[in-house]
């Protein structure tokens, strides 16, 4: 038995709040859970030894200041080592947007939130259950029907040395409303966090979503963003991951209504001995849904990328259009990519494409660039970066793209030399 998990179980004893009925269910599952090993499908390529018997002493009280993103007029919700930092967060909210801390929810919030909690993705892995049991900090975001919230809501989790934090976000975008959410985790020191967000997107509502998992080095992080779509809901999500000693994300979308549309772009850029593990499950439960999922990664040195992309088209989900594409660029022969497409189709009238490939340099593009005098090596570097930058270009929010691009470029430039 994992010592860390033992402490989780005992810590969970002292959690008692309005979510307890839900937490109890997860706790019951946790008590029976075995620590994952190589034979556990969900963790096959992602070793958990570093957490298994870890002890995270409480971090020294830190006065970490979270920096703003240039050009982004965001509504900030800042968590330092798991604790809400009101002084760094935005207090004034636009009309139609209701945000409250998990600990302060009103009776009205409780009704829907209790239902949504742990329901958007019913089957949860070990760390999802841990988060269910321990996440007392977090927010509830509720957008009123038809409210178009233009300012992005940015949720920042900042972690410092030795921190352990579990955060939860519950979002409801009501009918015809629209919202942008940015989930950002910061801090490369030795720490561990689980951060899960659940999104309930109602009929005709739309969500623009970003998740920046840019922790590297010794930081360990397991998290996920789960989306439930209804009739004609729209989701546009961009996920960016740097690897670390443990970095795992689960991104899941359920088409629970007809004519829903989901565009998911994911980028990972890994170096050194980093690991990044992305699991994605798309459930098409209703007809006429569309999913476009593009996952692109550059893996250098002896880093490991894991991608498990599952598309499940239920029997009633006729006229589904689903495309999942995972392309990888390997920068060294020690780099490892484990990619596993899983396709289950039970409806007969669907269009579905699913592929995982090792990306190859576009020879025509290379020739074109060289024919303008650009050296082959430089052209190759530009094309390689272009391979992921293409997805950055597709980010609807220009300020975020401008903020992200140099970070990717810098990281990529460092990879080139080794």
């Amino acid at each position, binding site marked *: 038995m994992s010592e860390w998990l033992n402490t989780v179980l005992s810590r969970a004893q002292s959690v008692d709040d309005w979510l307890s009925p839900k937490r109890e269910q997860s706790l019951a599952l946790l008590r029976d859970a075995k620590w994952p090993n190589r034979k556990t499908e969900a963790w096959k390529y992602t070793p958990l030894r570093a957490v298994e018997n870890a002890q995270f002493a409480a971090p020294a009280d830190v006065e970490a200041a979270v920096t703003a993103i240039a050009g982004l007029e965001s509504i900030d919700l800042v968590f330092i080592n798991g604790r809400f930092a009101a002084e760094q967060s935005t207090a004034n909210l636009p009309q139609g947007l209701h945000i409250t801390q998990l600990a302060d929810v009103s009776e009205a919030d409780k009704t829907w939130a209790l239902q949504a909690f742990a329901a958007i993705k019913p089957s949860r892995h070990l760390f999802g259950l841990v988060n269910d049991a321990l996440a007392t900090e977090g927010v509830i975001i509720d957008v009123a029907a038809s409210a178009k919230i233009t300012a992005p809501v940015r949720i920042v989790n900042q972690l410092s040395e030795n921190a352990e934090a579990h955060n939860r976000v519950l979002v409801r975008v009501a009918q015809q409303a629209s919202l942008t959410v940015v989930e950002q985790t910061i801090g490369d020191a030795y720490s561990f966090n689980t951060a899960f967000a659940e999104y309930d997107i109602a009929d005709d509502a739309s969500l623009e979503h970003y998740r920046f998992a840019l922790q590297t080095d010794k930081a360990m992080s397991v998290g996920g963003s789960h989306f439930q779509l209804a009739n004609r809901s729209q989701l546009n999500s961009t996920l960016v991951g740097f690897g670390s000693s443990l970095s795992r994300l689960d991104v899941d979308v359920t088409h629970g209504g007809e004519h829903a549309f989901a565009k998911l772009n994911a980028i990972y850029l890994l170096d050194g001995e980093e690991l990044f593990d992305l699991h994605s499950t798309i459930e098409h439960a209703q007809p006429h849904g569309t999913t476009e999922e593009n996952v692109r990664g550059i893996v250098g040195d002896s880093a490991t990328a894991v991608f498990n992309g599952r598309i499940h088209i239920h029997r009633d989900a006729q006229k589904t259009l689903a495309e999942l594409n995972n392309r990888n660029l390997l920068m060294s022969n020690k780099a490892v990519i484990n990619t596993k497409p899983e396709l289950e189709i039970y409806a007969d009238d669907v269009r579905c494409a699913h592929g995982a490939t090792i990306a190859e340099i576009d020879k025509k593009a290379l*020739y074109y660039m060289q024919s303008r005098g650009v050296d082959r090596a430089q052209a190759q570097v530009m094309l390689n970066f272009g391979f992921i930058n293409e997805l950055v270009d597709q980010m609807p929010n220009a300020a975020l793209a401008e903020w992200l691009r140099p970070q990717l470029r810098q990281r990529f430039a460092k990879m080139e030399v080794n």
Partner: protein
Amino acid sequence: MLSIKNLHASVEEKQILKGLNLEVKPGEVHAIMGPNGAGKSTLGYVLSGREGYSVQDGSASLQGADLLDMDIEERAKAGLFLAFQYPVEIPGVSNLEFLKAAVDAQREARGEEALSSAEFLKMAREASKQVNLPIEFLKRGVNEGFSGGEKKRNEILQMLLLQPKLCILDESDSGLDIDALQVVAKGVNSLRSPDRGFIVVTHYQRLLDYIKPDFVHVLSDGKIVKSGDASLALELEEQGYAWLNKQPEDDAEGLQV
């Protein structure tokens, strides 16, 4: 300045150029016309060093330097420029970044100092105005989502920025609306100078109304089979290429320059 002698070249074992001769002197504009599949684009590809095109015989030199012996980028640095019939889309690589890299390379090759970002931007802005391409286009990926005509204008823009010695324009006029045709022609004419040469590949006489050629050549089955002055283009426009098949072999040979 460009001297092509007896050039034989093939692609995927298929012989395309079969003894092509062409001499372009500084300041001259040569138009090349000819039926589809004759090898006009192939000539540009071979001269620019495209992979998959191999030369069996003959030579090509630019200002005395052996082109065929150089890497693709060296040829460009030596002053060769090919405006493509089908420009390539490169999503993810911004036009500006690409153009800057190309201009930097060109300036380095000429022993000139690198431009600052501001200087370069100013230049790019002027060039894009000249070809009537909104500057916002330059922030997009290279040719990404450009219409056919916009791609062609982007080729001319690159030519304006790079100031090559020898420009080959491969059907830069096809797919252009009437205004864009003028834009392209003006771009070319603005570069015309006593020390720069042009090869203009086209199917239509109309472009040559705007860009007055000194010579017009007919390329057929991998060779130049007829050469003349600007009036030859008008003749071809009327007659088409049917005469190519009727003319006896030796007669056609006799017409070569």
